[in-house]
């Protein structure tokens, strides 16, 4: 192996890493913003939940490569537009998170919600200050799955020319250069670990009440 390929191409690898992070995590943010109201609607209405949660699951079963290729025809983007990857991964994120949000909100004790209503919370403020904070632990679990899944799926985008670190796979394969492929794999793995760790940390910091001992 020609190890000095790595130091000579640090700039390129860094650029791909940055692209990978944006392509993977921007959809997580947009997906979260979309999934919260959809999940709220699903949690509050049994019939709606019966439609929304299975529909979201079906979305997730669409193969990513197929979605990358079909999307331009549907949303009118160019075939090599990074937007295709962002939109596709946002769909996957929403698909994963709708169930998480619905489950998380459904798990908030009804006694606590009733108490909040009886104290005089209106539904909107009750959602923001009582139900959503209590949903954070389950929500973070869903976000971790979505983020790691997106980081892995971005690589598939390399097949349509927009794939962040995935381009190291396609390029290394075409040039029959294993070190480049290996670098891609290690970088994707590290990125997934770091992002997952950050999400765990955010979850811990934002839910101090979950770590206190019971009945001191």
């Amino acid at each position, binding site marked *: 192996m020609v190890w000095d390929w790595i130091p000579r191409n640090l700039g390129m690898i860094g650029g791909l890493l940055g692209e990978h992070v944006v392509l993977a995590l921007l959809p997580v943010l947009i997906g979260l913003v979309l999934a919260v109201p959809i999940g709220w609607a699903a949690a509050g209405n049994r019939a709606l939940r019966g439609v929304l949660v299975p529909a979201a699951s079906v979305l997730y079963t669409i193969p990513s490569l197929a979605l990358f290729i079909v999307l331009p025809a549907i949303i009118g983007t160019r075939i090599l537009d990074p937007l295709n990857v962002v939109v596709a991964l946002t769909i996957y994120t929403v698909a994963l998170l709708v169930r998480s949000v619905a489950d998380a909100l459904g798990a908030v*004790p009804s*006694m*606590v919600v*009733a*108490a*909040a*209503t*009886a*104290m*005089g*919370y*209106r539904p909107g*403020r009750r959602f923001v200050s*009582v139900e959503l*904070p*209590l949903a954070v632990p389950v929500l973070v679990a869903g976000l971790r799955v979505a983020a790691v899944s997106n980081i892995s799926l971005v690589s598939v985008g390399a097949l349509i020319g927009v794939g962040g670190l995935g381009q190291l796979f396609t390029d290394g394969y075409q040039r029959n250069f294993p070190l480049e492929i290996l670098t891609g794999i290690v970088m994707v793995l590290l990125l997934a670990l770091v992002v997952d760790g950050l999400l765990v940390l955010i979850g811990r910091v934002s*839910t*101090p*009440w979950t770590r*206190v*001992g*019971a*009945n*001191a």
Partner: protein
Amino acid sequence: MIEFRGVTKRFPDGTVAVDGLDLTVDAGKVTVFVGPSGCGKTTSLRMINRMIAPTEGTVTVDGRDVMSGDAAELRRGIGYVIQQAGLFPHKTIRDNIATVPLLLGWSRRKARARADELMEVVGLAPEMASRYPAQLSGGQQQRVGVARALAADPPVLLMDEPFSAVDPVVRESLQEELLRLQGELGKTIVFVTHDIDEAVKLGDKVAVFRTGGVLAQYDEPGVLLDRPADGFVDGFVGRDRGYRKLGFLSDELPLVELPTVGVGDPAPEGWSLVVDPDGRPLGWVQGGGSVEEAAVVPGGSLYEVGSGSLRSALDAALSSPSGRGVAVDGDGRVAGALSADDVLRALAASRADEAA
């Protein structure tokens, strides 16, 4: 004052939870709704703060129909203590208590100061302010629940089986505490329970509901125990109602003098009451000889002259090893003795007074 006028609640599935309820809750008093499950007591309570809307009839608080105006505004003006406290697990005790003041737009500082003040009122140590509900015992959580309901000083307090999830000893102390608080605050309290003992202990008036949401009887506890309106109420107030009723009869009991001994003194034959140097009872000894501390048998319950009832007097007599109940004064010093026969004679006299 809270008024129910022809209130019926029918749920979409056809169940009638409350059926034609007419009832007036007196201002500044404790009114208890009691009955078996499915009798509509909780539904009735929840119509007062519009958590449930009546199908027919009106509920008014101080003359105002609760269905007029804004529901959230109405609820901020009515304290609510829910079953199992219903505290916000993600908020500290201080922030839990400050909930309604913050909703009313108080500054954070003023709301927190109010929360600290209320922690003292309900007997919670200040260092608990920054803890989370999961770190408190069930009884402490209930105190927080009461403090949270009182935070904005609402004239009306609704309590929905607040003490049902705590053990009997803690429940009793919470009940005592509530009566003490009510003595100071004079709120209009509506209290829901399925426990008739709790109802007669706490209520100035008790409303007994029967299954199907019908009000069976609405009376003062003494009247309820003495003259149940029908077989259902009779069955519900239970077999011990004669004994419970003693708790509502006043006490003009003749006390006999009770000779006492101190530790180390020579004791006469038979049972003698041992007292400490201040005259407070320690227990009983039997037989002669010098009184040794180890030989002292714990005494029964004590009957406090003036504040007690015939029930506590009878219990003092029945639970005493010697058969003589110990009466104490307000400072806990021995005032005299009474027997079960004395109590029964007083009961007969009280009946004769009532009949006259």
